[in-house]
Structures are given as C-alpha cells and as structure tokens.
C-alpha cells in the first residue's frame, strides 16, 4: 500500500518538475523530428518503401532519443544528493524506480503521440484506422524502454563517460524491443493491416521480465 502511495507522490514530483520546464520533452521531440527529416533526405523513399522502412526508422530514432533522454533521470538527483533523501523517506526503494520509470514511459509515450502526425504526413502512412492498436504498441514498447533504461541509467549515472555509456549499455539490451515493436508497427501500417498479437505479447513478456528484475535488484542499484 505504502509502495503505491509513495510511487504516486514521487510520480507527481517527477511530472511537476518536468512540466514546469518541459526541457526534456521539447528537446527529445525536436531531436526525433530532426532524425526523421534527415532520414528522408538520405533515402528519399517512395510510398511502398516507407511502409517497409518507416516503422523500423521510427523506433530506431526513438531508441536513440530515449538513450539520451533517460540520462537525466538519476543525474538530476546528484547535485543535492536528493536520492539519499528519497532513500531515507520511502519505505521501499522500488517505489523510486516505479515512479521514475512511469514518468519516463509517460514522457516517451507523449513524444511518440506528438510525433505521429508529422510521421504520417512525411512518410505518407495512414495511421488513423489503427490508432488504438498503435497506441497500445507504443505503450508497451515505451514501458519496456523505460523499465530497462531507467535501471541502466542508474548504473551509468555512477560511471565515467556516462553520456556515451548509457546508449552503449541500452541499445544492445533493447534490441528485442526494437525488433518486436518495429514488426508490430509494420503489421499495423501494412496495406492489409493485421493485429500484431505476437509482437505485443513479446513486448509484454519483456516488460514483465525486466520489471521483475528491477523489483528484485533495483534496491542494490541505488546503494552507496
């Protein structure tokens, strides 16, 4: 019970600080937009080609952006040692992770949904008829990225060269997410769209496995 209420309070704090400045959201949004535009310059895809490549490109851009965005979630706590204050106050350190990963998942999801219209227009892929399924895939994938990414950013925050280290730890670990979400998105954007049960099931498995891992080991990631 106190786990959930602690998580809710912490999530409130994460959202409040972010929406006060909106730094993270704006930067990530612009970053991905830039990548998507640059990609179309380099490849100049036709409509059929973009159906094939766009989902993978979209998720790759997303993975890169999130590996930059997730940096700050533990670094922010360092200057004033607020992480220690949190550890002294919460009854279960898992709530610190839960709040952070929920906030990160929410930020990612928000960026994805904001980018979707640009993406649709630039790559000429119709998304409206499958929007609800697409949202579900986005949700599962963002959750997976945030779960593993938050844990890894707790590691990289304590190392040197952290800006480079986080993508290096994150990208190989998140290949399953990249593959599964790109395939699921591709299925939804196909000329004959179908519901990608396999992809979504796979993403769920990934989320559950890594959430369990953080539940078991997260506490040690925060140790001094």
């Amino acid at each position, binding site marked *: 019970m106190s786990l959930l209420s602690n998580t809710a309070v912490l999530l409130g704090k994460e959202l409040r600080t972010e929406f006060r400045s909106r730094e993270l959201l704006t930067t990530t949004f612009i970053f991905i937009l830039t990548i998507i535009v640059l990609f179309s310059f380099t490849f100049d895809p036709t409509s059929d080609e973009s159906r094939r490549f766009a989902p993978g490109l979209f998720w790759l851009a997303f993975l890169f952006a999130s590996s930059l965005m997730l940096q700050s979630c533990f670094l922010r706590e360092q200057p004033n040692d607020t992480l220690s204050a949190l550890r002294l106050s919460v009854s279960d350190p898992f709530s610190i992770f839960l709040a952070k990963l929920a906030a990160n998942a929410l930020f990612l999801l928000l960026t994805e949904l904001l980018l979707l219209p640009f993406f649709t227009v630039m790559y000429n892929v119709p998304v409206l008829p499958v929007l609800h399924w697409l949202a579900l895939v986005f949700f599962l994938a963002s959750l997976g990225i945030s779960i593993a990414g938050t844990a890894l950013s707790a590691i990289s925050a304590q190392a040197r060269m952290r800006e480079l280290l986080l993508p290096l730890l994150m990208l190989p670990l998140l290949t*399953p997410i990249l593959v599964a979400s790109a395939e699921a998105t591709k299925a939804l954007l196909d000329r004959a769209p179908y519901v990608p049960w396999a992809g979504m099931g*796979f993403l769920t498995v990934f989320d559950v496995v890594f959430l369990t891992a953080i539940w078991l080991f997260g506490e040690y990631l925060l140790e001094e």
Partner: protein
Amino acid sequence: MGKRALAGAVVVFLMGAAAYASFYIAPEEKTMHVLQRIFYFHAATAWAGMTALFIGFVANLLYVWRREGKWDALGVACAEVGLACFTVVLITGPIWAKPAWGIYWTWDARLTSTFILWLLYVSYLLLRTLIEEPDRRALLSALFGIFAFIDVPIVFGAIRWWRTQHPAPVIMGGPGSGLDPTMSKVFFFSVFALHCLVVFLINERYRLEKLRAKFEIVRREAEAI
C-alpha cells in the same frame, strides 16, 4: 605452478585430439563434405561460451548476495572467457558461411543474436573500466551482467521469431536430428575439450583478477608510507 602447466598441457592435448577426431575420425558429411568439419569446433565453442557466461551469471548473483570479492573476480573472468569464445564463434561462422552460403555474413537469427550477445558482454567489460571505486564497480557490473544474461534468451527469441529469412542452419540440428553416431561422439568430445579449455582459461583469468586485488592493497600500503 607445476599443476597449472600440467593442466595447460592436458588442455592443449585435448584440443589437438578434438581437432584430429573431427578431421580424421568423423565421417564425411554428404552435402557439405569436408566443410562440415568446422561444425565440431564452431558449435562446441558456442556451447562452451554459453557455459562460461552461465557461470558468470551465477557468480554475479552470488556477488550481489554475498558481496565477496572472489565472486566479482569469477564474474569478470567468465565474461572475458565467454567473450573470447563468442569471438571465435563469430570468426569461424563467416568462414563457414562463405563457401556454404556464398556470403560471409547474413542477418540470420543465430548470427545476429550471437553478435548482439557479443556486444552486450563487450559493454559489460567496458562498464567495468569506467567505474573507479572497486566495490561499486563490482556491484554495478554484477547487476548489469545479470540483466545482460536475462536478456540473452529474449534477444534469441525476438530475432528467431522475426528475423529468420534463411532455413535453419544447414546441418546444425544438434544431436537427435539424425546426426551420425560417430559424428555425435566426435562432437561431444569436442564439447568436452572446449569446456576443459574454458575452465582452464577462467582459472587463469581468475588468478589474474585476484592478483590485481592484492596489488591494489600492496600499492595502497606503499602509498601510505
């Protein structure tokens, strides 16, 4: 010293015997002829590498649980040896693929996931170089090692599910898929030899890591004077 040299000699002998067996004792395979003989080395190395990584995973868990330096040393020893094995796998794979499939590399399930596995453990070793304080390095890298190992089957699953354009690798059905009895004997002998090699290498690397810890202590003492 004598014991280790003897162990080394035994390992070299076993490796030689395994190579001899796969060249001269194993019967010629019908479709791939002589080329198939890479299999005994290639697949056995992959098995031994997986064993090394598994021991490393257990060592990582034990470190997080017991916080004893020896588990950290074993963890890094296993990761390095496992990485060496998969380097061999990634080198012998393309050498085999070129004459067999006509290309060195294909984004096939096994190749791709092996490569990602390799990258994961390179990251693990890189992470270790980037954390100064030994206890923290041990703990954080052990945790990353645990995450990486959990990730391995998921990576295999994902890539297998969606990324296999090629038929299942040509002969490597493993035992039970109609492998000739002599072939399977030779194969398992290879697996045994490679496991001996891996254990030998892990032990050597483990000693190095222990020595390093000792060196740190002596160095600190010297600095204190």
